[in-house]
């Protein structure tokens, strides 16, 4: 089912196994926790045990006297470091500065209050228990709507409110749409707080060279240059005197695109103590202190005609931002993204959205794969399932009727997105055909007669990708966004590609090498991709929001094409031929039609560097080019269908299968695309059925270990079948669209939709996720007390 619109070389589009894998398979790959430096010492943070409290005093004397302790720092020691806050410039967005160690107040359980440095982590943890913090507990607020209420405990007294943003956007004429409607519907959904939970937690090592005035900082981050820029600002070290290196990074999913207070403290300590300082977060810390995600309260209203045509939508998206409107993306990261993409791939001419961001006494919220969209998409799709049931329509027919069809593309939505191209209806059809929709409906009826409950969940999606400046604006986060690639051919004829995007599992060493290898006519093995070291790469933003294939791939394409032109120019002189007549393939340049007249790439390279006669006067001898790319907006699409069976006596769910149709334009490596979908869908299964960060009303995290925070395992994730469609983008280099988030945007609606479809005979009512066995029994009225 692949449409080939772009002529392909040997590598782009090939299912090539990853060049980076061997070192991971042998245990030789080094993550930050695996690094050791001479004289290195270890940090442990003292964290708030209260959701909301005033700090009246800190006594570190017992900790300082403990074995192996080198230092204990509190806010007073780091008072010169400015507080962290988000850089988002939007009217009406209030700032909530966070000191890197809590000063007067703590606002969530897990907030760093002090740091202990000791000879090893065991001793540091021993001493951290001895730091005496005198807290005056304050009333806590842990629900976003309660936090908005008059008289709620205030996290930031000087703001006078816990609401940091409250704006209503209007597109088209929503009031008229609702006035003209034959029928209107409403839905409320409180999506659960869950988190990225990468298998490698956060961690960093700082080392300061006093003589050179240089900080070297190893960190498990997705954005080395942005981290360097931030550290420079917070510590007053010139940016060019900081080198950020990422060793292997064990997953990020957005959690590692934020600057964290711990990182600033560790860098501060390295300079302060003149010794390398290592901090490796443990799992308990990650669960309570690294960014949480996905929690929103969403209320939707829809205006429809009797035949099921959607006239307008209203949405209220309340984001529960946790203790701080966190730096990097602010508490808007969830509700703003949800609200602006709420129309999705449906024709919605009239739309009103209220976006509210609130602080509460819980861990701050940050980005996590499909940030904002998971909650918004889930609410809308489950709403549409309900509407279809109410109207007596098949959920597929309701969607097909209101979906943007291929012949309407490009399509500008009422809320400002420009969908460049795609296969919306075709994806839906292929997904249904693959899963055998009609047969499944028949099977469902058959099983119901036997007292078994099978359900089908359908979730078509459009996915903003390629986070450049234009799409950032279209989806609500106006911030310039671009990246660079430097492609070089060394005198040996081998290729080095240095990129500013970052790989933490996505396989860029393979995919970006595939791009360069095709353009430069070399073997994949002759290309080395370098990233994750600010000293070895040009300046760039890093990896987030599905931008690396498009921006990284695009920048590599542009730079490699420039190098290719240089090669052909030199080779033309060597072969006494017009560069336009030359063919670059298999590591050599030959004259079209005369394969005997050829030079190897190594011969071209060595000539360029060392033989002046092949170059014109003043021509650059180095075969290198650095190009940036800031793509136009491009949107991927697809459709996920889930088949589930529910036990209505216990509320247990068994997922039978998942079908995912993905159209991300030109595919660089289908194996890697499949892997991204598999992982994202598994996270969606976790977030819909298992994963939930639960707080009590005092702000205690009740799911603070992996025994209670339930990640899905191989027994919970069923077979996931991926089918590809390929509609190249007309607006990006190579027609590449990004991907990687759609699975987590769309699978929760498909999973929950399948469960609710299975239970349709009981008319289930769900206003909260996840669908735990208990919530399922309550949804169908089996349990009422």
């Amino acid at each position, binding site marked *: 089912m692949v449409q080939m619109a772009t002529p392909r070389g040997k590598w782009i589009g090939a299912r090539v196994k990853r060049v980076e894998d061997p070192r991971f398979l042998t245990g030789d790959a080094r993550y930050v926790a695996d690094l050791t430096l001479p004289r290195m010492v270890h940090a442990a943070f003292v964290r708030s045990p209260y959701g909301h409290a005033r700090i009246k005093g800190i006594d570190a004397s017992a900790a300082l006297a403990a074995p192996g302790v080198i230092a204990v720092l509190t806010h007073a020691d780091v008072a010169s470091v400015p507080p962290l806050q988000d850089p988002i410039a939007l009217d009406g967005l209030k700032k909530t500065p966070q000191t890197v160690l809590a000063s007067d107040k703590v606002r969530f359980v897990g907030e760093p209050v002090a740091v202990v440095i000791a000879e090893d*982590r*065991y001793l540091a*943890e*021993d001493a951290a*228990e001895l730091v005496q913090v005198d807290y005056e507990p304050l009333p806590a607020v842990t629900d976003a709507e309660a936090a908005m209420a008059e008289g709620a405990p205030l996290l930031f007294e000087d703001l006078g409110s816990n609401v940091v943003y409250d704006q209503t956007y209007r597109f088209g004429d929503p009031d008229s749409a609702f006035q003209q409607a034959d029928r209107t519907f409403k839905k409320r959904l409180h999506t659960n707080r869950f988190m990225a939970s990468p298998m490698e937690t956060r961690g960093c090592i700082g080392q300061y060279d006093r003589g050179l005035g240089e900080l070297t900082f190893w960190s498990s981050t997705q954005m080395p240059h942005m981290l360097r820029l931030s550290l420079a600002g917070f510590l007053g070290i010139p940016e060019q005197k900081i080198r950020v290196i990422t060793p292997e990074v064990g997953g990020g999913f957005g959690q590692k695109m934020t600057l964290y207070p711990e990182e600033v403290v560790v860098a501060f300590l390295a300079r302060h103590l003149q010794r390398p300082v290592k901090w490796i977060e*443990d*799992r*308990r810390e990650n669960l309570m202190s690294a960014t949480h995600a996905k929690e929103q309260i969403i209320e939707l209203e829809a205006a429809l005609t009797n035949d099921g045509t959607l006239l307008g939508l209203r949405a209220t998206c309340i984001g529960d931002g946790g203790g701080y409107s966190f730096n990097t993306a602010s508490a808007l990261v969830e509700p703003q993204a949800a609200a602006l993409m709420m129309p999705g791939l449906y024709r919605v001419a009239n739309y009103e959205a209220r976006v509210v961001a609130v602080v509460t006494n819980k861990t701050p919220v940050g980005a996590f794969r499909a940030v904002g969209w998971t909650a918004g998409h889930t609410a809308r799709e489950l709403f549409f399932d309900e509407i279809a049931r109410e109207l007596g329509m098949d959920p597929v027919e309701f969607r097909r009727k209101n979906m943007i069809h291929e012949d309407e593309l490009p399509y500008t939505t009422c809320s400002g997105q420009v969908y460049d191209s795609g296969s919306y209806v075709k994806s839906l059809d292929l997904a249904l055909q693959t899963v055998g929709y009609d047969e499944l409906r028949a099977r469902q009826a058959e099983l119901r007669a036997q007292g078994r409950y099978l359900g089908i969940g359908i979730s078509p999606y459009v996915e903003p990708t390629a986070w450049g400046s234009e799409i950032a604006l279209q989806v609500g986060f106006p911030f310039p966004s671009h990246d660079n690639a430097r492609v070089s051919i060394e005198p040996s004829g081998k290729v080095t590609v240095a990129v500013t995007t970052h790989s933490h599992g996505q396989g860029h060493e393979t995919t970006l090498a595939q791009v360069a290898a095709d353009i430069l006519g070399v073997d994949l093995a002759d290309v080395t991709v370098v990233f994750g070291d600010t000293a070895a790469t040009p300046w760039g933003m890093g990896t987030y929001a599905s931008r690396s294939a498009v921006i990284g791939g695009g920048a590599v394409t542009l730079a490699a094409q420039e190098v290719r032109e240089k090669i052909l120019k030199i080779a033309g002189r060597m072969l006494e031929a017009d560069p336009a007549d030359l063919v670059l393939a298999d590591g050599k340049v030959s004259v079209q039609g005369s394969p005997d007249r050829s030079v190897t790439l190594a011969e071209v390279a060595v000539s360029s560097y060392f033989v002046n006669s092949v170059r014109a006067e003043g021509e650059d001898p180095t075969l290198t080019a650095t190009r940036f790319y800031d793509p136009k907006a491009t949107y991927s699409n697809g459709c996920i269908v889930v088949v589930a069976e529910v036990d209505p*006596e*216990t*509320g*247990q769910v068994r997922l039978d299968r998942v079908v995912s149709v993905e159209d991300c334009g030109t595919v660089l490596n289908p194996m890697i695309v499949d892997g991204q979908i598999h992982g994202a869908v598994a996270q969606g299964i976790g977030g819909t059925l*298992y994963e*939930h960060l*639960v707080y009590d009303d005092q702000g205690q995290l*009740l*799911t603070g*270990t992996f*025994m*209670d925070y*339930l990640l*899905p*395992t191989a*027994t*919970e994730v069923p077979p996931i079948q991926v089918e590809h469609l390929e509609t190249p983008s007309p607006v990006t280099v190579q027609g590449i669209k990004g991907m990687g988030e759609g699975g987590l945007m769309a699978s929760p609606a498909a999973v929950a939709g399948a469960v609710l479809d299975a239970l349709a005979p009981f008319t289930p009512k769900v206003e909260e996720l996840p669908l*735990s*066995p*208990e919530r399922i*029994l309550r949804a169908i009225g*089996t*349990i009422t*007390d």
Partner: protein
Amino acid sequence: MKPPSFEYFAPTTLDEAVALLAQHGDEAKVLAGGQSLVPMLNLRLARPAALVDLNRVTGLDYVRAENGHVVIGALARQRAVERSADVAARQPLIAAAIRLIGHPAVRNRGTVVGSLAHADPAAELPAVAVALGAEMVVTGPNGERVVAADDFFVSYLTVDLAPGEVLKEARFPALPPRTGWSIVEVARRFGDFALAGAVATLTLDDQGAASDVRVALFGVADRPVRVPEAEQVLRGERPDDDRIAAAAEAARAALVDPPSDVHASAAYRRHVAGVLVGRALREARERAQASG
């Protein structure tokens, strides 16, 4: 997440272990498989001053059939018991229960007796012990004593072991003839502790009536509980679907105060306990009939 300091002892005889435990009293903990204790140490939720490691004590890893019982020593790993031919032949309920515990790497290290002594109320093996009327052989400074399972489990993570005492072995009665068994549970994920679970055995007489019925629940109280109210409904009766449904309802009604936590409320546990009792009894009936 590193454990706090402790004094470590690795005795090679049980007498030595008992002497060490007596010497350190409440401050000491026994370390066997460590699959429950070590996470608590790493999380610093437990801080014993001393650990007495039984793993170097020889001759405690037995699983054997003896006088109509399956006898399991303190160091027999769950995995070994799960694979034991004696267990499969004489008391398959034990192996079935073990297959619901955690994952292979946990069972490779975890011991059956350790699970009993830890006494998590949501664990499978204590409920099996209660249902079968297993005997706990306790050894201590004053010699050996035998405690009935029903008396052994006192409350949440608390058993009838005095300072200095060790649970040396557990004796499970073999399955009588014409007896079916079942263990069923609801857990959030495969291998997790149960939200609720039920164990049942059912012995049929020549007329097909239930001459003996045993029902125990786990995850629904501060310890595993026998449910005589449900057993009574069936004893001496033919276990047809209606009777079993009545037994399940009786079990539900008998629950006093099931726990609530982030995974399920008391109401959920009460409801599901009834469902599981019904399912366990039906499965036990099928097995009893098949063993004909």
